[in-house]
Structures are given as C-alpha cells and as structure tokens.
C-alpha cells in the first residue's frame, strides 16, 4: 500500500530526470565532438593542423577572438546599465509610488513581447548614424531591464518597509538609508539580477545578428558563421566556448537561490 502511494513521487522525479537528460543529450554529443579525434571526420576545410582538442579550441579562439571580445564588451556595458536603469525604478514602484508608476511598471515589461528582429530593425531605421555598439547595447537592455525590474521588485516586496522607516527615524538621511539599509538588503537580488542579465545578454542573438556589422559581430553571431561554414569538431568547440561562462553563471544562480531566479523571469 505504501509502495503504491509512493509511485507518483518516483514517477514524477523520473519525469524530471528524463526531461533533463533529453535536454542535455545533444549538448553532451556536441561536447564529445570537440574532444574526439578530429581526424575521424575526414578531410576538413580547416586543414590537418586542427586535429586534436587543444588545436580546435585555439583555432576557435583565433578565429572568433574578436567576436568574443565584442560580446564581453557588450555584456560589460549591459550588466551595470540594466541594474542602474531597472533597480532604482523597481524600488520606487514599491516604496515611492507616483501617479502613473503602475503604468510605467507594466510598460517596462512590454519589450519582452516585442520580437527582437522588429526592435533591431526599428533601432537601425530610427538612428542610422548612431554608433552600432550602443544600438546593440540598447537592444540588449530592452530584453534585460524587464528582468531586473521584476526580480528586484519581488525582492523589495519581501523585506519590511519599516526597516527603512526606522533608519530614517534614527536620523539617517535618504542616502545613508539607501547605502546602509536598502542596498545591503537588496544585494542578493542585485547579484542574481546581474547574473541573469549576463546570461541573457551573452546568448542574445535576435537583436545582435541584425545590428551586427562584419566588424561588430557578437559571439552568438559568430556561432552562426561557424555552424554554416566550419566542420563539426570546430563548431562543437565553439559551442563549448560559448557555454563556458554561462554554465558557472547558472550554477551560481541556483546556489544563490534559484527561486529568486525564477521569480525574476517574466511570469
């Protein structure tokens, strides 16, 4: 009887495991491709020199080093800007609401439902002379700021507003309260948001590909070139290079409290 009661739990866990395995299988095959003998794949356009795993990776880094740097630069601009734009607003919506603040809060989530290609096209058309790098950053921000607004907003809701009120009543000014009460309390949420923004911006393709010029390719756009022109071992190695920073970020997100991560996602 007990065993019968327990089967749904076991079956449910099995279903979760099955899903994880199904999602991981193609990644595992790809990873294996980067570490198997590249010779097995016969004649390849990259030549015989790219025949073992170290050579594959150095070939990828050599070919796409520029795109990697470009992606790193975009992410380095997007993460702080997304936090600076999103976090103060998220706090204001909860603690200092003003006429129209609810409307602005829901407007902040609208970009998530605007197709990236459409926004990229609109950005090029509206600001043709604007530096492409900053158009790229703007496009990335449109899809990351909403995540910050959501997850920081949820975090503000979870701590007691009286903590801030007490600080004020003890004579702390607005700045001091922010620095010594609000920011420390929001720190975990801010770190999680930063990781989330990083992961989304690093993988962004829809906006980046249209806005990219040959000199201004981000790494996901470089992945497209690799997938369409290189042999499988090189494409596999490039995929692993792409995943290298994402996997630690996701693990950190889980370790810091995956629940917050989930609440930050558009729901």
């Amino acid at each position, binding site marked *: 009887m007990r065993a019968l009661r327990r089967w749904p739990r076991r079956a*449910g866990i099995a279903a979760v495991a099955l899903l994880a395995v199904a999602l*991981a299988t193609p990644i595992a095959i790809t990873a294996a491709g980067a570490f198997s003998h590249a010779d097995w794949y016969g004649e390849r356009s990259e030549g015989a020199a790219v025949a073992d795993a170290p050579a594959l990776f150095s070939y990828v880094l050599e070919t796409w080093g520029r795109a990697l740097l470009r992606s790193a630069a975009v992410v380095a601009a997007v993460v702080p800007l997304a936090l600076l734009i999103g976090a103060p607003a998220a706090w204001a919506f909860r603690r200092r609401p003003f006429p129209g603040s609810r409307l602005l809060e829901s407007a902040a989530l609208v970009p998530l439902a605007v*197709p990236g290609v459409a926004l990229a096209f609109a950005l090029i058309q509206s600001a043709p002379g604007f530096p492409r790098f900053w158009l790229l950053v703007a496009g990335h921000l449109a899809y990351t700021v909403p995540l910050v607004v959501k997850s920081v907003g949820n975090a503000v809701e979870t701590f007691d507003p009286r903590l801030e009120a007490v600080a*004020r009543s003890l004579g702390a000014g607005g700045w001091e309260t922010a620095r010594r009460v609000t920011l420390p309390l929001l720190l975990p949420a801010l770190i999680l948001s930063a990781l989330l923004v990083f992961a989304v911006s690093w993988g962004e393709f829809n906006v980046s590909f249209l806005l990219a010029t040959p000199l201004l390719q981000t790494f996901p756009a470089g*992945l497209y070139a690799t997938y369409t022109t290189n042999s499988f071992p090189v494409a596999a190695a490039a995929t692993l290079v792409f995943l290298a920073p994402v996997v630690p970020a996701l693990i950190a997100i889980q370790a810091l409290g995956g629940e917050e991560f989930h609440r930050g996602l*558009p729901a």
Partner: protein
Amino acid sequence: MTRRHPLGSAWTGVLLALPLLLFLAAAVAWPIAGLAARAFATNRGAAFGVVLAAGRYRTSLVNSLALSSAAAVVSVLLALWPSWVLARERFRGRDLLRTVISLPLTFSGVLVGFLMVVLLGRVGALPKAIGFLTGREAFVGAAYTFAGLFAAYLYFEVPRAVVTLESAFRRFPRELDMAARALGAGPLERLIKVALPAAAPALRSTLAVTFSASMGSFGVALILSRRFTVAPLEIYTEMTGFLNDEVAGALCLLLALATLVVDRLLSAGRR
C-alpha cells in the same frame, strides 16, 4: 511610514524611475513609433497591402502564429508535471536537474538549431544510433522538416515553461494542497483538481511568455528552415537580401502587433 516629506517622497520616486522612463521612450517607443510613422507615410501604407496579400509574407506571418501557438501549448503541457515535481518534492539532485533544465534558456536560437542538426541532421546522432541498432537509419535529416523545427522550438520553450510554472507552483498556498492530501487525494489528483485551477492565471501567463519568445525567435529558423518560413526570417531576408525596407518594416510592425495582442489577451486581468 516615511511620511516626513510627503511631497518629496513622490518626487523621489519619479526621479528614481526617470532613467527607466527615458530608456523606454528612447530605445523602444521612439524607434517603433518611427517605424510605424514611416510605414504609413510611404505610399500611404502600401507595404501593408503587399504583406497582407496572399503570398510569402502572409504565409510567414500565419506560420509564425501557428508554430508559436502550438509550441506554447505543447511546451506548457509537457512542463506541467516536471515543474510541479520541482516545486513540490524534495529529492537529491533536484538543484542539479533544475540547472540542467534551465540551461537552454540562455541559448541563442542558432545554438538550438545546431543542436537539432547534431541530433537529427543528415548525419545526426539519432539516425546513426538507430542505424547501428537496427541496421536501417531512420529520421535522417528530420531536423530540416517541420517536425524538426517544432522539436527545436520545444527545446527552448519547455525549459522556459518549466521555470515559469515552477515559480507559480511555489507561490501556490501549501495549505490547500495539505487539505486535499488529508482528504485522501493522490499527487496526480491534487495536481489536476487543486493546483491547476488555482494556477490558471500562471498557466495563461506562461502561455504568453512562451508564445512571445517563439514569435521573436529567429536563429532556429535561420539554421533549420528549408521550405517552412517564419516572419522573423522573412524580415531578415527582405532587409539584408532585397534591401526592401518598406516590406520589412510592415512585417516588423505586424509581427510585433500580433505578438503584443496575444500577450495582452493572455495576461489580461493579472496586472
């Protein structure tokens, strides 16, 4: 609470939200309004007629709508049980499984397309494995068919649905669940009779999230699409291949409009 500066506090709020307002106005509202203004001004909006007349453009929009709706519904259905288990059960390895499941959320579309080629391409792993086991390869090149494209959409939509639903199931009051359990309902029964009705708003918003993501997805189709075309792909082709900015602009607007309308309808009553 902090009522010391009643007037000042509202202004603080405005000041803190100002960067967001300016950003949304400059980087989202202004470009899209400009796009719309130009599309209506050139030839009195003739491009809309071109796009909506029977042909490749309209087909791409209809395809996008159909594919995204189907992907949203199927991914939510597939995500129901795993997300419920992740939210409710404690077991060893749960965090690891959740990390693996959330991994595809960060993948760009081209990567998903590539993974599908690895799995189901002309020399895909699955056809080879089947060939090895049975002597006859099956599903050769399936990645490039409609089924392959659909599977690729599910690959990034199911994780999105799992993650969104899990957070909804977590917020769902435990007492209801315990009451149902005390009345003798099994886990599956509790899911269907208690949790799902309570989670209906979350289900709708999950449908909205997955639908919007599919409508905007571009990289998967760029890698996999052969005969079946979707709107983002047509926009890209018109823009870079034919330099046909008017048609591309009209397609952009119609695609964005369709996505926003469905998104709003599904999330109505939640905000």
